[in-house]
């Protein structure tokens, strides 16, 4: 096949660019350790939510030194609990599910972002390094009141942390 020299150079450059992109993403996944939301959260039928230890009482729970688990229900048109409190420097693993339709769980101004799908439990681990008040929005259309669906995460400075919610 007859390919012009400039076009062959361009083709080679394009392939190098693509390999570099894949390399960057792989570096982020393997070396930096940015995990993808995956199937590891398991499944849960909507009817089981009220009887489930994690979701019958949505909350934040300390599970280790500086390690917390947050059990959250996203439903039309609110998050339960609406506000989560964790200390600065903590690592929080979120378990989020929905009893009705699809929702999103986005911590505004960060890259903590996940889809919530009925029947599934979304599991994601987030490190909260800076104290402050973070907004949470539902970023997947969920019905007529979608734009009112919000929550917050209060990341409390270590000096003020007394535990609990």
């Amino acid at each position: 096949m007859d390919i012009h020299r400039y076009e062959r150079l361009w083709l080679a450059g394009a392939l190098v660019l693509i390999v570099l992109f894949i390399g960057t993403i792989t570096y982020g996944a393997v070396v930096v350790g940015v995990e993808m939301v995956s199937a590891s959260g398991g499944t849960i039928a909507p009817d089981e939510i009220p009887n489930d230890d994690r979701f019958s009482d949505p909350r934040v729970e300390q599970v280790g030194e500086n390690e917390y688990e947050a059990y959250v229900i996203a439903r039309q048109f609110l998050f339960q609990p609406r506000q989560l409190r964790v200390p600065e420097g903590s690592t929080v693993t979120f378990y989020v599910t929905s009893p009705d339709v699809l929702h999103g769980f986005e911590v505004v101004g960060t890259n903590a972002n996940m889809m919530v799908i009925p029947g599934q439990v979304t599991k994601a681990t987030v490190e909260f390094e800076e104290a402050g008040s973070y907004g949470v929005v539902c970023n997947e259309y969920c019905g007529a009141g979608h734009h009112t669906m919000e929550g917050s995460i209060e990341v409390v400075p270590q000096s003020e942390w007394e535990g609990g919610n």
Partner: protein
Amino acid sequence: MALFRDEYPAEARIIRLALASSFTALGIGALFGLLQALNRTGVLPLISPTDYYTALTAHGVLLALIFTIFFLVAVFTWAVVRSLERGLPDLRLAKLAYGLMVIGTVTTTVTILGGFVPEIPMSADVLYTMYAPMQAHPGFYGGLALFLIGTWVAGFDWFRAWWGWRNDNPDERIPLQTFMVLTTTLMWYIGTIGLAIEVLVFLLPWSLGIWESINPLLTRTLFWYFGHMVVYFWLLPAYLLWYTVMPKLAGGRLFSDPLARVVFVLFLLLSTPVGVHHQYLDPGIAEGFKFIAMTNTMFLLLPSLLTAFTVVASIEHGARQRGGTGYLGWLGALPWRKPAFTGMALAGILFAAGGFSGMINAGMNINYLVHNTIWIPGHFHLTVGTAVALTFMAGTYWLLPQLTGREIFSERLGLTQVVLWFVGMTFMSNAMHRAGLAGIPRRTADPTYTGFVFETPLGAISELRAQIALGGTLLFVSAMLFLLIVILSWMDRGQPAATHDPLPAPLSGAEHSPPILDNLKLWTGIAVALVILAYTLPFVAIVSDGGLLGDGIRASAQIIGPLLGVGP
């Protein structure tokens, strides 16, 4: 050379009808776009939040599916007939396809618009992605199914035309435009399997009450099996115009026919096994499947990067034929006063910008930052909203005279129109990208919250809102101007069209490429194999985890809107 409409009057009539349908959808869809831009920025909220989501559904369906695909049917029918130099074998098939698409469109649109009138027990506020368990009126799904079947019939018609030509020309290479149509149609057949199963097996029977429950992750994954391929179904008619019409407009010839074929084959192979990249943040799909989708997506950059080279090289060749010289000085020799050329060139420039933001979206872990923020519509208003839509409008300025026998009413007005689109989109999309980085979500009637405010590292949120509203308004004015020009040109207001030169042959023709490129069976086989490799395991996992019909996951009807949904 005689005009297309004089040589093929019956085909020209069908093509004109398809264009008229496409532009009707454009007009209505653009109006809803304006309402959204004014509403969600708070500049001029004219509609209630409930109506916002009805408008958003109509905007998405009418522009992303109806405007684009009717236009595709028009251009592809023209391209097949023109490049094979023979009429369609049986016009009844083309009429059947067109009829099914119109009935489907009307049915779906009526159910969506019913959402504006509470007294009518019919609505479909589920947006164009129709994620279950949100449920629309059965007419919404049924109409989409009819529309889809119509496109299949249209595709079958193009294949019949080619089979007829092949019988008479057993040893010739497939003419380039027909090759582009056939590969794109094969891609469509493979990719629409997902939508067909989603709608016909799950959503439609479920909306009729035949299934009581649904697996939302399964239907969502079926949607995205279709949903990324469809972006190339929008884009490839624009590529067809860039490859075969734009070089002529620039005064030159296509640089390389063989590379054009390679590009279309790559799209056939790679555009479906990438859909999971819309689900990077979904639960229930293992990280490995996401990684495979990511690598496939990155390789899908290749045909677009090759296109950038070939199109620019062809235009440069044209400019030099017109007396252009120098490294960049040749740019001045291009026919910038022709709206057909300038529109396509501006579309190409914004497509490059959209390509860059697309690379961010494709980056699996970088995607966390932008997923479901307004960055995403910022991205696709550059791609489908400009690379595709502006190329279609520009292409119309060149194609319409051959179909109606009348020149464009005013080329100067046409030039204003395409520049206005470019300027409006530059305002709107740059602000949407930046607002997305601040975390502002997409698909939201009113992105202001009680507990916090968004902060942008660059500029102010109020400035971003103003740019989105201004850009959206300019885009609406441009769309209306386009419709005005088309209507005036159509209504005998333009001069009688001069005869048209044929499209010039490429500098490097098909004879320079291996015949295996024309082996459609081979490429289809590989494309199917890639889809099976990418999708079998995810689907098996989703069904074994959540069941075919879900586990007690009930419909959330979007029929009465706010009355039903509120409260835990």
